Structures are given as structure tokens and as C-alpha cells.
């Protein structure tokens, strides 16, 4: 049993690394495509096997240190030093003293700690529980699909850039290697190994963001690097403090709910530092700017960073250690910081007209909500956090791919330019609209988690206020955008889109995934999430139950809240049929031009022009409100950063 788990584990982490090496060493397109597809299939297989094994186990799969190849620990230590050295090398090469300083601040403690302190490694090297499994599924299903998308996308992308020599081998190497590192990160039980994989993801994202190599992408990559390095410094500091206090690096032991009296000394500070590291990785205010800058990279990179890798590592860490600070002041400030980011990012998103920036702000907001839930830390909140990790990963991955495809199709990522995109790119636009609806409306999952989060925040009214205001803002920015995409005039001669098969396949696949996770929310919750929550052993009186095609909050046998998801999906299904019917039924004889005070020009049924001043035709301009006067980025960002910074200081300081 343990041998098989170890083999699978090796497959899920090392195979991507090997595939990555092949992609780099054999710069041949056909070979690369085969490798990407093979990697996808094998990762799917791994994910499936992990589900099977874990459901058949008692809740955890453990690989003990003794069953691993000897000296693996030493190898990781040496790689860790080399990795930091490589980051430092980039700091020197790009002449960024800040990065050099931050690297040294990590390198010196790492060397002292790992080589001179005689660290006692935990006996359970890898522990896979349901929380890990949720992440593994996300990384091993959504991640490779994005790589498949990139096969078609990168051809087109490089075609636009007119490169002399293709940079795709390096690109695919990092993308696939990234997945292996993420898988390892969520499976390891050794905090110092997690730190190593943590730094690998930092480096991967740096390399991916600067992939196009122009000035702006290098600058943004540097910003991503130094912000994440501050997280790395906090991480290594936390490791050392925890080891000095507790004498263990086992994540399971650290995150086990502390017995009264153990939450003392510098331990809360160390947990606060780990949360801080999670905040930097998950681009929480005031570190949101690296994720916003990251979208200069090719679309698959954004999709990867936002959905299944990188930012999810941050929230994973916070959710992972959340039982340790359940009900403490630290938990309160974690919740407050997360909820504040949720509100701040949602509010600023209203003012954005760049589609990718809207998506980025929405990601930041949702990560904030996940962190907020981890901070609240009761049964409902953690159910919401784990569900949101899944729903957000799938939907946001899909949306980035859609925006990237549309950008290649219409040559713009401005929302205002997407008016009429339904006509030019019906396939992609339809998928994108449903993807956006899945971020916003019932019965789709993201809304359900928002609802759970609000119901979970009953113990923290301030958090409730922030979530309620943020929730209203999300309605505003999503519905504005959906409205633009859906705008159409008669008679749309639908184009047949010419997009690469790999793009079409990956869009279709993720689209199907959105429905699978949202329709199947009740069984998914019962099989994958509830067991984890049971294992956390809360004292809460309210439990979350997935049954009767919905999610219900039960308190001593009676429902105190709940929602029958499937019945609303039935209405949705009916509406889809109605949509097909009305689309086919529309006759041109029944159609009229929009009302322009009777000043329409000619018999144009689309109403593009009206008879303006001086009897001259003038174009009809319809635009969304962006409210930059109230919600503008320039206006709010500084204030939001200061508030968020203060909250983080309080979060760490409250433990002293």
C-alpha cells in the first residue's frame, strides 16, 4: 500500500519534472505536444488513483521518511541552497539590490538551520489528506489542461511576436515543472520541504512572467519576485521559530488544534509569519500588485497562476494551519485581512475596463474570501474555503483562457471592445458568459461559497460588513461585463471561429468541469470535503451537510440554513432550452431598430447611427459606467495598501 502511494507520489511530482526536461532538451514541436498530452493523461490517472486510495483509507495516506530513498533530505537541502543562489543570481544580473538582500536573508538562515542545527526531520514525510487531495485534483486536472491550451495558444502568440527563435521549449518546461512542484508542495508534511517547493513556485512564476522578455514584463517579474521573497523570508523565520519552540517540522503536528496553554510564546507570531507568507503568495493587499503585473505574460501563464498553481499555494498554507489558530486573536485578524482584501479588490474592479485586470482583481478578492474563511475557522467557514478553492480554480482558469482566446481573435482585452464579440466568436463568447455567470450567480458554486461565508461570519460582525459590501461590488463589475458581451444586434451572421483544436478542447473541457463541480456539489462535498472537516474535529454546533442535491446547515438535527442547488439548476436547464428555441425562432420581420428618439439613420436595424446636430449622422456610443471618480485605482490603492498593511502588522503583532 505505502509502496504504491510512494510510486504514485513520485509519478505526480517527478513525471512533470521529467516531461519538463524533455520539452526543454528536445525543441521539437511534435515531441513536445506528445509529451504535454502524455503528461496530462498521467496526471489525470494520478489524480484518479489518489481519490480511489484516499476514499478507501482512514482519511490520510502517509509515506514515512524511512521508506523514501536515503539522502533525499540532503538532496533537497542542497537544491534549496542552489535555488536561492539562482534567485540571487537573477538579482545580481538584473541589478536589483532588494532581491539580493531578500535572498541573503533567506540563504543565511537556511544554511545555518539546515546544515548546522542538526534538524530532526518528521517521520511522516508525506501526508495526503482530503485538503491535499482537493489541491491535487485542481493541480493535476486544471493545470495540464492549461498546458494543452498553451500548445495552440503559444504558436499563435509567437506568430504575433515574430520571434526568430522559438522560446516555447523553455516555456513548456517551466509550466509543466510548476505542476510537479505544486503537487509536491501540497503533499509534503515537512515544513522545510514545503518551503523548498514554495520557493520553486516563486522562481517558476518569476521566469514565466518575464517570458516575453520586454522591459515591462521584466519589471513586473522583478516585482513578483521581491514580493514573494518577502514571503519566503517570513516563511524561513517561521520555520526556525517553530522548530525552536516545538522541536518538530511536521505540518500535521503544527496545525493540530493546540491544547490550551500551548498557544504561547512566539508560536502565534510564527503562525502569523506563515500567514504573511501565504498573503504574499496569494497576492493579498498590499501585495496585490504583483499578480496584476503578472498578466503581461502570455495568457496560459495567467490562467495557471490564477487557477491551479501559485496563488492557491498561499491559501492552501493558510487553510492548512488554520486549526492551529482557531478562535484566537490571530484568527480574527487573518479573517479581517482576508475580508478587507475581498472588499478592496471587488471595489477597485468596478473601475477597470481591462478584462484581464478585472479577472485579476476578482481572483484577489476570492483569495481574500478564502483566507477570511480560514481565519473565521468554524465548520461552515472551512467548508466554504475548500469549496471556493475548487470552484474558483475551475471557473477562473476557464475565464482566463476565454479572454486570451478572445484577445487573439479581436486584438483587444478591453471590455468595451467586446461588444458584439458574440457575433465574431460565438463559441468562445458563449463559454465565457457562462463562465462569468458561474462566478456570480446561483446555483453556481462561487455564489454558494459566498453565501456560506456570510453565514459563517456570524461570530464576527465586522467581517460580515466587509463581505456584504464586497459582495455587492462583485455583482456590479461582473454584470457590467456580462452585459457587454451579450450585447448583440440583429442579424448576427455567426462566424465559425477558426481556433486551434487544443484551444477548443481545453475550453470545452474546463466548461464541462464547471458544470460537473457545480451540479455535483452535494456528493463532492460529502466525499471530498466533509471527511476533512470531520477530521478537524470542531466543537461547532452547526455542521454543513451535502444531501438532497443541495447544501444544508444542520444544528442538532434541524436545518438552520440551506439551498437546494439542483432545483435551481433545473430552472437553468429549462432556460437553456428556451434560449435555443428563441434563437432559432427569431424572424427578421419581427425585429425593429432600438429607440433613438425617432432619429435613426436610414433603415439600419442595428441602430448604429442617429441623425445628430446639423442633420449629420453621428455614431451611437453606448458605454458602461466605470465610476473611476469613486472606485478608481489611483484614488483607492494607497489607502487600501496602508489599511491592509496595518492589519497585517496587527496580525503578527497580536501574538507577542
Amino acid at each position: 500500500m505505502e509502496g504504491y502511494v510512494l510510486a504514485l507520489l513520485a509519478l505526480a511530482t517527478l513525471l512533470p519534472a521529467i516531461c519538463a526536461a524533455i520539452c526543454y532538451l528536445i525543441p521539437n514541436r511534435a515531441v513536445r505536444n506528445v509529451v504535454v498530452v502524455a503528461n496530462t493523461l498521467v496526471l489525470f490517472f494520478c489524480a484518479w488513483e489518489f481519490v480511489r486510495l484516499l476514499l478507501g483509507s482512514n482519511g490520510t495516506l502517509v509515506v514515512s521518511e524511512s521508506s523514501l530513498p536515503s539522502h533525499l533530505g540532503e538532496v533537497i537541502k542542497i537544491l534549496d541552497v542552489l535555488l536561492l543562489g539562482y534567485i540571487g543570481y537573477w538579482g545580481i544580473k538584473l541589478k536589483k539590490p532588494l532581491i539580493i538582500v531578500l535572498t541573503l536573508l533567506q540563504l543565511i538562515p537556511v544554511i545555518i538551520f539546515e546544515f548546522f542545527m542538526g534538524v530532526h526531520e518528521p517521520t511522516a514525510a508525506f501526508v495526503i489528506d482530503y485538503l491535499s487531495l482537493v489541491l491535487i485534483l485542481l493541480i493535476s486536472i486544471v493545470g495540464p489542461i492549461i498546458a494543452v491550451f498553451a500548445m495552440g495558444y503559444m504558436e499563435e502568440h509567437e506568430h504575433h511576436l515574430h520571434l526568430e527563435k522559438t522560446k516555447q521549449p523553455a516555456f513548456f518546461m517551466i509550466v509543466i515543472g510548476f505542476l510537479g512542484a505544486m503537487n509536491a508542495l501540497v503533499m509534503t508534511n515537512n515544513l522545510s520541504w514545503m518551503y523548498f517547493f514554495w520557493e520553486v513556485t516563486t522562481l517558476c512564476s518569476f521566469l514565466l512572467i518575464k517570458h516575453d522578455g520586454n522591459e515591462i514584463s521584466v519589471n513586473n517579474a522583478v516585482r513578483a519576485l521581491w514580493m514573494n521573497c518577502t514571503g519566503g523570508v517570513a516563511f524561513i523565520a517561521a520555520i526556525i521559530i517553530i522548530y525552536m519552540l516545538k522541536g518538530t517540522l511536521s505540518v500535521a503536528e503544527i496545525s493540530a488544534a493546540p491544547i490550551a496553554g500551548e498557544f504561547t510564546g512566539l508560536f502565534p507570531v510564527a503562525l502569523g509569519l506563515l500567514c504573511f507568507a501565504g498573503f504574499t503568495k496569494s497576492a493579498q493587499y498590499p501585495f496585490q500588485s504583483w499578480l496584476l503585473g503578472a498578466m503581461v505574460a502570455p495568457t496560459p501563464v495567467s490562467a495557471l497562476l490564477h487557477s491551479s498553481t501559485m496563488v492557491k499555494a498561499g491559501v492552501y498554507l493558510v487553510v492548512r494551519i488554520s486549526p492551529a489558530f482557531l478562535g484566537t486573536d490571530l484568527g480574527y485578524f487573518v479573517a479581517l485581512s482576508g475580508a478587507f482584501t475581498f472588499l478592496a479588490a471587488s471595489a477597485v474592479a468596478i473601475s477597470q475596463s481591462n478584462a484581464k485586470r478585472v479577472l485579476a482583481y476578482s481572483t484577489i478578492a476570492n483569495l481574500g474570501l478564502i483566507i477570511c474563511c480560514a481565519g473565521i475557522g468554524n465548520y461552515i467557514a472551512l467548508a466554504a474555503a475548500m469549496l471556493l478553492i475548487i470552484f474558483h480554480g475551475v471557473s477562473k482558469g476557464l475565464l482566463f483562457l476565454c479572454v486570451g482566446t478572445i484577445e487573439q481573435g479581436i486584438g483587444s482585452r478591453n471590455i468595451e471592445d467586446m461588444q458584439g464579440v458574440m457575433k465574431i466568436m460565438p463559441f468562445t463568447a458563449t463559454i465565457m458568459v457562462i463562465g462569468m455567470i458561474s462566478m456570480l450567480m446561483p446555483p453556481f458554486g462561487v455564489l454558494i461559497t459566498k453565501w456560506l461565508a456570510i453565514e459563517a461570519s456570524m461570530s464576527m460582525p465586522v467581517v460580515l460588513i466587509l463581505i456584504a459590501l464586497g459582495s455587492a461590488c462583485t455583482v456590479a463589475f461582473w454584470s457590467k461585463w456580462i452585459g457587454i458581451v451579450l450585447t448583440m444586434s440583429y442579424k448576427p451572421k455567426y462566424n465559425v471561429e477558426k481556433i486551434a483544436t487544443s484551444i477548443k478542447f481545453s475550453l470545452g473541457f474546463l466548461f464541462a468541469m464547471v458544470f460537473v463541480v457545480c451540479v455535483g456539489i452535494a456528493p463532492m462535498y460529502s466525499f471530498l470535503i466533509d471527511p476533512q472537516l470531520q477530521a478537524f474535529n470542531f466543537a461547532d454546533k452547526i455542521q454543513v451537510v451535502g444531501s438532497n442535491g443541495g447544501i444544508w446547515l444542520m444544528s442538532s438535527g434541524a436545518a438552520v440554513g440551506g439551498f437546494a442547488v439542483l432545483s435551481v439548476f433545473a430552472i437553468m436547464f429549462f432556460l437553456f432550452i428556451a434560449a435555443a428555441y428563441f434563437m432559432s425562432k427569431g424572424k427578421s420581420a419581427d425585429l425593429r431598430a432600438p429607440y433613438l428618439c425617432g432619429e435613426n439613420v436610414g433603415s439600419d436595424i442595428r441602430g448604429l447611427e442617429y441623425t445628430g446636430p446639423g442633420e449629420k449622422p453621428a455614431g451611437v456610443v453606448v458605454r458602461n459606467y466605470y465610476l473611476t471618480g469613486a472606485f478608481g485605482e489611483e484614488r483607492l490603492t494607497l489607502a487600501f495598501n496602508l489599511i491592509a498593511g496595518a492589519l497585517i502588522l496587527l496580525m503578527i503583532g497580536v501574538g507577542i
Partner: protein
Amino acid sequence: MIDNIIISIIAIVGAPIIGGLLFGMDRRITARLQNRFGPPILQPFYDVFKLFGKESIAVNQTQMLYVLAHLFFAIAALLMLVLKQDLLMLMFILAFSQIALIMGAMSVRSPYSKIGAQREIMQMLAYEPVLIFMAFGVYKVTGSFMIDGILTYPAPLLYSLPLIFFAFIYILTIKLRKSPFDFSTSHHGHQELIKGITTEFSGTQLALLELTDWYDLVILMGLIALFFAQPLWVGILIALAAYLLELVIDNICARVTWPLMVKATWVIGGGTALVNIIWLYVRA
């Protein structure tokens, strides 16, 4: 189960009748307030039947879809109310119904309809938080998010949630699109707005929108009645009184600008609701 089906059918059939009559009374009372005689009470029904009979024209072939979504989700919200389901989720379903209408208005390339839709979004931005606060206040008192919990709670909610009740009455004006908050559409054609969000709907579509308004009105009245559910008839009387109050407010107010509305609603509506919630915490 059978009981639930019967209740659902009664609600689906009965709600528009009540809603239509209330709208008829609205027009009558408004006319009297303006020194006019006003149409017969049944006038909304005549209007809707007439609209159903109109030839079907549209600006694009997808509008009907949004109208249906608007209607169906309003009915879904009504069913959640009469089947005593989760109050917070009911608010979200109601919001979905509203968003469907916004999508419908935005789906046509028409300036008036788009302006109406943008303003409707601003209205949602203003009142959504207050609705969430209301659901939360109810939870704080009854210990349940289910409407069932309100009906089985021994004392009327109004005693514990007076300020939330006030906040809800406040946003009722926005929800009903009455002056001073009637800027996404209004019952009278205005020069800069025409009919706003409903400008480009006609015939059957407009009839269904009217029908949805009736459902919405009944849901809102039902939510007000929940504040005094023991005995329920007092709650219903309070709801009717609140509606009367809205009519008076509608007739004595001039329209405000939307930034003022968002600010005023967050401060006055949200603020009073929060004071109420804080009081509940302090009292507990």
C-alpha cells in the same frame, strides 16, 4: 411533500392576483394624491392582457430569454418564501432575477436601455448589503437562516430588529423604483431616460415584466410581513401600511442623483441596520 406542492401552486397563481390588485390600488391612490380620478383597480390586468395580445416585435432574438429568466427566478424566490427556505439565499435568487433583467436591457444596443441598466446596477450596489444585513439580523435573533425559524420564533422580529425594519422600508423605495430612487426606469416617460431599463421591451415581453413586478411586490410584502409573524395578519397590515407609505414618498419626492443614492443608502440604510446588529450583540 403534497402540501408543499399545493402551497407552491397557490402561491404561483395567487401572487400575481394580489400583486396586480396592489398595483391597481397604487395607481388609484397616486391619482387621488395628484387630484386626478385614476383608472379602475383592475387596470393593471387590462394592461397586461392587452400587452399579451400585441404583435411580437423585438430588437434582438435573445431578449425574451432574459425576460423569462427574470420571471422564473422571481417565482423561485417566491417559492423559497412560501416554502420557508433560507432567507439569505432568497435574497441572492432575487438578485439573480434582477441581474437577468439588467442583462436583457444591456443585450440591445440602445442608449436608453443601457443607461437604465447601468443605473439598475448602481441600485443593486446600494441595496444588496442592506439585504444581507437583514438576513444576518434575522439569524442573530432566531438562530436560523431559514424563514421557518422566523415563523416558529415566539416573539415578533420587529421588537428586536426595529432599525433593520426601517432600513428595509428604506430600500423598498429602491426595489419598487419609486421616487426619489426611480432612475433605472419609471412609470412616466422622462426625457433623459425614456423608460430606462424597459425601453426596448414590448408586447409579450413587457407583459411578462409587469407580471414579474407583481411577483416581486408580493415577495417584498411577504418579507415585510415576516417582521411581525405572530400573528401574521398584523404583519400583513404592516406591509400594506408600508406600501401606502411608499406611495406617499413617491409622490412627494424628486429624483436624486445615483451617487447620492449609493452614499445615502449605505450610510442611512446600512448604518441603521448595523446599529441594530451591534445592539443585538451588546444585548446578548
